[in-house]
């Protein structure tokens, strides 16, 4: 589904990614862990086409297509979803309006007619239940005045609405208390099928107690320095990132 080969990327001329290789298959959950500044969020940015990151070398193919040639909205419509580390507030734009526009764009790509207002609201209700999100959130402007936890839950809700094939969750666990963390993780687990894949980017092992990864990768200094099964996360938690640093050096 996703194949990253020897990827190098810079931000403002500074090299952040220094040769990443990664393969993700449908149905898999990958966790990418690493200390601050290792390039985790940069990798997510490359995948969704943020223009502040410049790819200098390497290739990324998604479902057989050169992903790097697609615009950010084309990537979304092709099924890639990013759960933002810092979701953006858009004052004045209601969640309903925002999601309706997004969902109908996705439907258009699939050759489907736009949903009627009634059907759309019904869909919203169903998905809200699925991810256990408070109704009040969807009656407000996009992320405006939401608490940190509410914003993260809102990301999962949007994921439920758009049914992506590849979800990238960028530090979705940061700033969440344990209850919110469970809700977010349950949402992700319920949306999991054999056809879609998830990349969970996280600093801590904590989230991986609830979202069980098939593969764990450790990113350090712009490179994946270690890959393994879910037990790698536990080892990392126990020994700390110093262990990895030592092992490499």
């Amino acid at each position, binding site marked *: 589904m996703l194949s990253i080969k020897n990827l190098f990327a810079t931000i403002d001329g500074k090299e952040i990614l220094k040769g990443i290789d990664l393969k993700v298959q449908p149905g898999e959950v990958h966790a990418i862990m690493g200390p601050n500044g290792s390039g985790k969020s940069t990798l997510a940015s490359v995948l969704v086409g943020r223009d502040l990151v410049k790819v200098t070398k390497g290739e990324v193919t998604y479902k057989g297509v050169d992903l790097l040639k697609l615009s950010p909205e084309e990537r979304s419509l092709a099924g890639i979803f990013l759960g933002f580390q810092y979701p953006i507030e*858009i004052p004045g734009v209601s969640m309903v309006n925002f999601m309706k526009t997004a969902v109908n*764009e996705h439907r258009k790509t699939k050759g489907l007619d736009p949903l009627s207002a009634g059907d759309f609201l019904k869909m919203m209700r169903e998905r809200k239940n699925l991810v256990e999100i408070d109704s009040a959130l969807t009656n407000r402007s996009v992320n405006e005045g939401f608490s940190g936890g509410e914003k993260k839950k809102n990301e999962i809700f949007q994921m439920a609405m758009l049914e992506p094939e590849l979800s990238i969750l960028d530090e979705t666990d940061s700033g969440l208390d344990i209850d919110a963390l469970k809700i977010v993780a349950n949402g992700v687990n319920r949306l999991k099928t054999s056809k879609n894949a998830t990349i969970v980017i996280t600093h801590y092992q904590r989230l991986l107690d609830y979202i069980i990864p098939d593969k764990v990768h450790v990113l350090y200094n712009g490179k994946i320095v270690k890959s393994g099964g879910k037990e790698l996360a536990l080892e990392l938690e126990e020994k700390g990132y110093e262990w990895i640093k030592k092992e490499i050096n």
Partner: protein
Amino acid sequence: MEKDQEKILNEVTQGDYKYGFYTDIETEAIPKGLNEDVIRTISKKKNEPDFLLDFRLKAYNHWKKMRMPEWAHLKIPKIDYQDIIYYAAPKQNPKLKSLDEVDPELKKTFDKLGIPLDEQKILTGVAVDAVMDSVSVKTTFKEALAELGIIFCSFSEAVQKHPDLIKKYMGTVVPYSDNYFAALNSAVFSDGSFCYIPKGIRCPMELSTYFRINAANTGQFERTLIVAEEGSYVSYLEGCTAPQRDENQLHAAIVEIIAEANAEVKYSTVQNWYPGDKDGKGGIFNFVTKRGICKGDYSKISWTQVETGSAITWKYPGCILKGNNSVGEFYSVAVTNNFQQADTGTKMIHIGRNTKSTVVSKGISAGRSNNSYRGLVKIMKNAKNARNFSQCDSLLLGDKCGAHTFPYIEVVNPDAIIEHEATTSKIGEDQIFYCNQRGISTEDAIGLIVNGYAKEVFNKLPMEFAVEAQKLLQITLEGSVG
């Protein structure tokens, strides 16, 4: 990134003005230029009573002594007032008995603009007075309204049929000496709308005037007079468009509103005069004086405006709150793009006790345009417990445009409570990216954000027009990103 912005900003300029067509219709016009004879000719053509000719001549003589105001934050090219045609009218049978007698070309023009003159075709229940160049073409639903005692007709017709009302009210809110453009209008105005709502009557439909400039080299000078007697209510809407031309055309209008005790007047404008092309060539110069007086106690006047057109806009719809407990409101969305300039806002003059005013102004600037809010809140000596709330927001798209706010507050009564809030924001790239990541194109994202930003004002418009205004906003901003 820079390049992308440039590209997208360039695309803006291709946003087409879809009302830029010209109707080839026989027009009767007088020669260019302005002098007493021209004024006498206009007055004679319209068969006006002497008091009106006197009014015009007084205004003209006053105007000659005045100078064009220069205080606005606008760059106004020199206007040659002798190079303008002051009267142009589509040639047609002057007394229309039925719609069949309206020139089919004219009917087509208004159909194309989405303003059907055929009452059977009107679904929205809006009565329309259609004004092309200097004259009113047709007023719909006149008879139905007359049954309630409501007078809704062209200004010229009102001069003939209700000269006493015209004499009593015209120039009482905006005297001819008010300002340069008001004096000019008072001298040469050719038509407009008149509306009279008798005591206790709630006008059952929206009244609307649709202004269209068609002829070349012509100025449009219309005036609208609305009188709402005690306890009456009316909602009034004004729309306007013009053909796409390389030269600038002058539009200088006057609107006067009189609200007696407990009366309420809602006046909404969707202004879409031709704004000029992407290089700033052509477009309408829009110099308008709009003012209402809340004469009686507990009366209310609301101005709602969506300004998307014109090369230059100079316009400050205001309220004189004379009656005790009277209320004035001003809700505005002004959008400028390319080389458009707007200096617009309001004047709230509190004279009576417990008077209240609300001002919500939303400016949106894109391209290389300049958008200014200029507002006066004046609390006079006897205006005990007066209250004003003003909110002026500016939204910038791109980095070559400007937003400016010029609030003036004059208070001589210590009881007054005045609040002024102002914000300036830019549509953030991260907001656009967030939308992109959900599958929404940059165009649509801007549409969503801008409409969200202006929602508070759109909500004040009559429903059908709110939808139209939203679309208009999107067309005006097509392609612009910051």
